């Protein structure tokens, strides 16, 4: 499955109230089934990019193609059927009175017959482990539960692309891990294309590719290990410095030679073990 699913070229956008372009002449291609992480500091234009891809904003210049179809006002609604978005703040995206009705909202909009809807709502909620909460009011769920429900609403639609805009930012570490694992399964088993906008290095390291945006400009588009190689400079790109890089720097202070290239945490453990054995 090497065909491109998202093709963005020369994309620019400016909010009317702002002087500066929020996104400027951006080119990006994502292949079907890929997992791409988008990183950048606060206000760098990540959410703006997501909204442009979903046709929620209209670009000044440039084009977006989804599965070979150009995004225009005619194709807009068909294209949206291919894209599921999970937003930063789950509270502001619930429409339904209870969990199952909320998950059904997107299906209702697409005119899915009721019998199918019932089955799809159920299986989506089961896949995020929230079927037991079907009758609960969304507002009274915990942060992590809300984010699962939001995700179920997307899964039920069976889109080709899932865009998560800092969808795990409000969670405790365990809740975050669970959601990321869930997405990973969807990506690997069901072949969903995933775009995850994040400040979390662990989430970014799961991606096949990391795209770095700085003040509306795409500055890097590469494998995670190559992006993480930048070490301390990463913090300017809205990502934490990888733990192994921090540790390397600290160890260096003790006059110990450390390898230049980026190491994962596992790689770091292996390297330390080799080092100590050689002694």
């Amino acid at each position, binding site marked *: 499955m090497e065909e491109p699913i998202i093709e963005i070229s020369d994309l620019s956008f400016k909010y009317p109230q702002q002087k500066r372009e929020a996104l400027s002449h951006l080119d990006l291609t994502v292949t079907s089934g890929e997992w791409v992480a988008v990183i950048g500091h606060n206000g760098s234009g990540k959410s703006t990019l997501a909204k442009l891809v979903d046709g929620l904003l209209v670009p000044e210049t440039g084009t977006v193609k989804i599965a070979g179809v150009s995004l225009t006002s005619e194709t807009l609604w068909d294209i949206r059927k291919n894209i599921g978005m999970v937003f930063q703040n789950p509270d502001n995206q*619930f429409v*339904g*009175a209870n969990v199952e009705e909320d998950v059904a909202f997107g*299906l209702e909009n697409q005119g899915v017959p*009721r019998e199918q809807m019932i089955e799809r709502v159920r299986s989506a909620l089961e896949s995020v482990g929230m079927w037991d909460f079907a009758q609960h009011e969304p*507002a009274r769920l915990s942060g992590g539960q809300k984010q699962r429900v939001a995700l179920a609403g997307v899964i039920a639609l069976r889109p080709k692309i899932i865009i998560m805009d800092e969808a795990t930012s409000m969670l405790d570490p365990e809740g975050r891990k669970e959601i990321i694992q869930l997405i990973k399964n969807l990506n690997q088993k069901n072949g969903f294309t995933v775009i995850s906008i994040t400040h979390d290095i662990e989430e970014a390291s799961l991606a096949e590719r990391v795209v770095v945006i700085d003040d509306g400009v795409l500055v890097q588009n590469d494998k995670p290990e190559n992006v993480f190689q930048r070490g301390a400079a990463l913090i300017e790109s809205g990502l934490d410095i990888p733990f192994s890089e921090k540790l390397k720097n600290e160890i260096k202070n003790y006059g110990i030679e450390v390898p230049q290239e980026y190491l994962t945490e596992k790689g770091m453990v292996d390297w330390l073990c080799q080092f100590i054995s050689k002694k």
Partner: protein
Amino acid sequence: MSGVSFSFFLKGVRPLIWLILFTVLLQVFFSRGGTVYWQFGPLSLTSSGVINGSYVFCRFVLIIFMSTLLTLTTAPLEIADAMESLMGPLKKIKVPVYEISLMLSIALRFVPTLMDETEKIMNAQRSRGVNFGEGSIVQQIKSVIPLLIPLFVSSFNRAEDLATAMEARGYRGGEGRTKYRVHFWRLNDTLACVVFAFLTVILLGLRNW
């Protein structure tokens, strides 16, 4: 039937008890007509006063019971659904019934959120030394501003986010939508209707008595 305990209704009545008593006493002592039982200056105790008083009392208690029951047992969207089916006939004359009821239901859905938000902002401002509901009238009016502005800003942001999310989820008006929820009429519903029809008759009877 509703799973809401009786003592809970009483709690709902309690804050209003003085208002109710005051109105009832007003009715009882200032109504004229019917048999006069007792009189002192402008005050009089007459048969129609007693009837009016009990009528007002019943009305109050019923309103409180009903509204407590409705908000506790029925989710806002269900209220909106009910509105939609009641307004159903209007569809024929091209009233955007679906849109109106969705708007209504979202407004209703945000009532609890708005209340939470109000509470949060009040707490934040209390921590900055505001005393809500204390001090002179001027002070009280002044203390409303630090509450209202943040509330307005957050509601506005929320509304914008929600509109974006709904659009992203493919919402484009009532055309071509299917419905997930269906309603069933149960024996209890029939019973409730009968009871309330009965009460209505009694009240009407009391009034024309």
